[in-house]
């Protein structure tokens, strides 16, 4: 690695890297994102390395690249081969030799590994043509497939750190802030505070030392975009932070990342080391006389530490508890000094804005929400994964266009956005444009970008109960409404799902939810009732069915349902075999029967029944 002392050094290095990369005739990229790791992409990569070595491609130069998350996690592990641009999905270890001998050696495409459009049954061989990618606008995530996160050369090769030189040598700090302000970038952590305004306030704040924090304490159930970004493209976050530090006048930065994200910690640490060695961090960055350094602060994994004041207190070494926010962190934050805290995605957007200009950025999105947003689309849709879409796209386009609609021919009922702080939006409102303000209007929020799709097999009371219990456990316990209130809300919801609810408890639940939201100390408590309130707003009949008819319409709440076998039963006996409680009896080829008193309502019989004879009531 070189030590870069001037901007022209960087440009020269970039040219050298591009020249060197041109020598590779074939580039095999194996996705190394979290989802693909679970599918065993590491073995696939190792197998590729072995196969390439074994076949000894003396005449061709092959580069094996282990990239960050490519987004299409449903179909992992993903392998792409350049320059043909072949896109293989669900690649297993055993497929590797075939790929090497067929595709790499002879240029043939293996049909079996291609993505098949479930609607048209057509095999698609390139990434761009796949409907999942077609509707996306991958500005921030786009580079993930082109670089190896542990190699700074890759990032510089695709134009990385160009924005930094532009910012350092062509712009004044005030100009950068003005640029961010006109771009209309808003905080991607959830609240959507204008980033430029925050930077300006922090720049104006009095203090001899200013800190910058990158918030990667992502803890929403079902959300994993921040980690994927930090894992897949850590240098873009670093570049954003250095530009931010120059604009604000910051001298030290922290990346707060939870220790449950080992890959994110590792890749960020490597990136910082590389940037330091290359002279992009530390004293006198690129010879501009500007000093800035970043270190990693690992969090213990508390959900509440995503809240800015709790996060700051965690970095200081104290218990992660929020404090009153009358005095903002931009005036008095970490160690009592002005502190600017932004989300990973916000920082990663900064280099793009500086590179392409605020006008370009402001042309994407809606009037008040600019740019793109990464969502983690999970739940009961065909294509789960990370999607990056321009603001203002409708929920329909995301769920049915990119997500491909419901699995198993079911109906989609609702989508939960914003994690535990957000709410459930019913299918009737799927025309809603997705931006900060419209989501808040319908009682949900953007949050950090989790999107959990639910179909008719999901009970909304059960969902509300799940989120309340999650928050009850994650509450720090400092303030009374959050600690006691959430506990009581959980108790009431438990009661409703067990058939103990009545009209009074429903009223109490609504009342309590509003007070908890009104009086809690921090964002966790203030937004905690959202899942309950939005479920009550849009799915009240479901609550009422639980209370008055003592029935769970979705067939989820075990205390309120009963399994039975209808006359469609062919007597195959499959259900009796899987029943863990031995609660099914019947002669062969005769209609079987469930003994209610023994039944544990696990649902295994329903899953195995081929003639759909098991009914839930």
């Amino acid at each position, binding site marked *: 690695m070189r030590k870069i002392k001037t901007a022209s050094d960087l440009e020269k290095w970039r040219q050298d890297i591009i020249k060197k990369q041109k020598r590779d005739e074939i580039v095999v990229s194996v996705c190394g994102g979290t989802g693909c790791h679970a599918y065993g992409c590491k073995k696939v990569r190792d197998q590729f390395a072995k196969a390439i070595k074994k076949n000894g491609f003396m005449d061709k130069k092959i580069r094996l690249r282990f990239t960050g998350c490519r987004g299409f996690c449903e179909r992992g592990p993903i392998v792409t081969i350049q320059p043909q641009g072949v896109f293989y999905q669900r690649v297993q270890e055993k497929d590797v030799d075939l790929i090497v001998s067929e595709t790499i050696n002879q240029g043939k495409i293996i049909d079996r590994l291609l993505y098949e459009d479930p609607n048209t049954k057509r095999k698609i061989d390139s990434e761009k043509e796949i409907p999942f990618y077609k509707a996306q606008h991958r500005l921030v995530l786009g580079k993930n497939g082109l670089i190896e996160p542990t190699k700074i050369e890759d990032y510089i090769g695709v134009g990385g750190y160009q924005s930094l030189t532009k910012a350092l040598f062509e712009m004044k700090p005030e100009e950068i802030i003005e640029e961010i302000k006109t771009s209309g970038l808003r905080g991607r952590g959830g609240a959507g505070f204008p980033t430029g305004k925050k930077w300006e306030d922090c720049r104006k704040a009095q203090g001899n030392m200013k800190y910058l924090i990158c918030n990667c304490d992502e803890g929403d159930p079902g959300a994993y975009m921040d980690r994927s970004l930090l894992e897949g493209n850590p240098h873009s976050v670093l570049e954003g932070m250095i530009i931010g530090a120059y604009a604000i006048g910051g001298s030290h930065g922290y990346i707060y990342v939870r220790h449950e994200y080992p890959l994110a910690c590792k890749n960020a640490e490597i990136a910082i080391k590389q940037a330091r060695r290359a002279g992009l961090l530390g004293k006198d960055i690129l010879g501009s006389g500007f000093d800035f350094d970043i270190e990693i602060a690992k969090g213990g994994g*508390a959900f509440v530490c995503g809240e800015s004041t709790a996060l700051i207190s965690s970095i200081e070494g104290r*218990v992660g508890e929020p*404090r*009153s926010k*009358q005095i903002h962190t931009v005036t008095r934050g970490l160690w009592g000094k002005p502190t600017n805290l932004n989300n990973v995605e916000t920082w990663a957007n900064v280099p793009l804005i500086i590179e392409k200009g605020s006008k370009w950025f402001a042309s994407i999105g809606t009037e008040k929400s600019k740019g793109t947003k990464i969502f983690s689309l999970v739940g009961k849709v065909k294509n789960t994964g990370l999607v990056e879409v321009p603001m203002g796209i409708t929920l329909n386009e995301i769920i049915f266009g990119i997500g491909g609609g419901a699995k198993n021919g079911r109906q989609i009922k609702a989508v939960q956005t914003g994690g535990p702080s957000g709410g459930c939006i019913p299918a009737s409102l799927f025309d809603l444009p997705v931006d900060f303000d419209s989501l808040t209007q319908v009682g949900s929020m953007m949050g950090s970008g989790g999107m959990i799709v639910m179909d008719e097999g999901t009970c909304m009371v059960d969902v509300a109960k799940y989120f309340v219990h999650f928050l*009850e*456990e*994650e*509450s*720090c*316990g*400092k*303030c*009374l*409404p959050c*600690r*006691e*209130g959430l*506990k*009581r809300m959980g*108790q009431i919801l438990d009661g409703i799902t067990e058939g103990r609810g009545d009209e*009074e408890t429903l009223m*109490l639940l609504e*009342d*309590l939810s509003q*007070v908890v939201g*009104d*009086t*809690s*100390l921090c964002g966790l408590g203030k937004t905690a009732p959202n899942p309950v309130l939005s479920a009550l707003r849009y799915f009240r009949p479901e609550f009422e069915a639980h209370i008055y008819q003592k029935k769970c319409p979705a067939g989820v709440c075990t205390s309120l349902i009963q399994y039975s076998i209808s006359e469609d039963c062919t007597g195959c006996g499959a259900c009796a075999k899987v029943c863990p409680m031995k609660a099914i009896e019947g002669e062969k080829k005769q209609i079987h029967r469930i003994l209610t008193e023994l039944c544990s309502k696990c649902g295994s019989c329903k899953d195995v029944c081929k003639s759909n004879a098991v009914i839930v009531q």
Partner: protein
Amino acid sequence: MERKTVKITIDGRLLEVEEGNTILQAGRQFGIHIPTLCYMEHLTPYGGCRICVVEISQDGGKPFVDTACTYEVKDGLVVQTQTPRIIRARKMLAELLVASAPNVKIAQDIAARMGLLKVRFPMEDNRCVLCGLCIRMCYEQMDGKALGFAGRGTGRKVSMPFNTRSETCRLCRGCDYVCPGVIVPCHGVKEPGELCGRCVRLDDMPYCCPEGTFGCFCDKNPL
């Protein structure tokens, strides 16, 4: 040296208060009652019990709810301490509090003050209301640092580090002195679910507390 003052409005009254005071302090200086639980003079405001919530609006903006004990006065603040929103919130907080600790006098007192007649939650019998007074007393006044919170959420409790008496504990009993949990309600330990509230029914019980010795919130001892 003359201190700078700011003008704020509490419940429609225009007050001139010294800078650096909180809304709670300002209110108390002018005899405006705001109930508290985790607040004590000379200890850092904690903002945990939320009983002292008030509605605040600034420069004609939308009113928001925050705690009076932590919010510092600023010129032009308009504070409401008795709006329906606040009364409803306090009543609910009192209900939550007394449901978790019915045998702590201050919880019963606050419930009585809020006019609570019925608790709709299953009663528990905690002795600690997690106000954190003992911890702040130990740390700030006695320089002890022998106490702290352990656990999270519903598992939170006051504890000495590693459950052993720390060397810094001098057995001064400052923690005991400030703890509201050691004072049982005036008329002894309650049955589960029972609310005290005698002090608000003085007409029914003229001899409830003739000497003011129980120190209920009534005239002799405002909370």
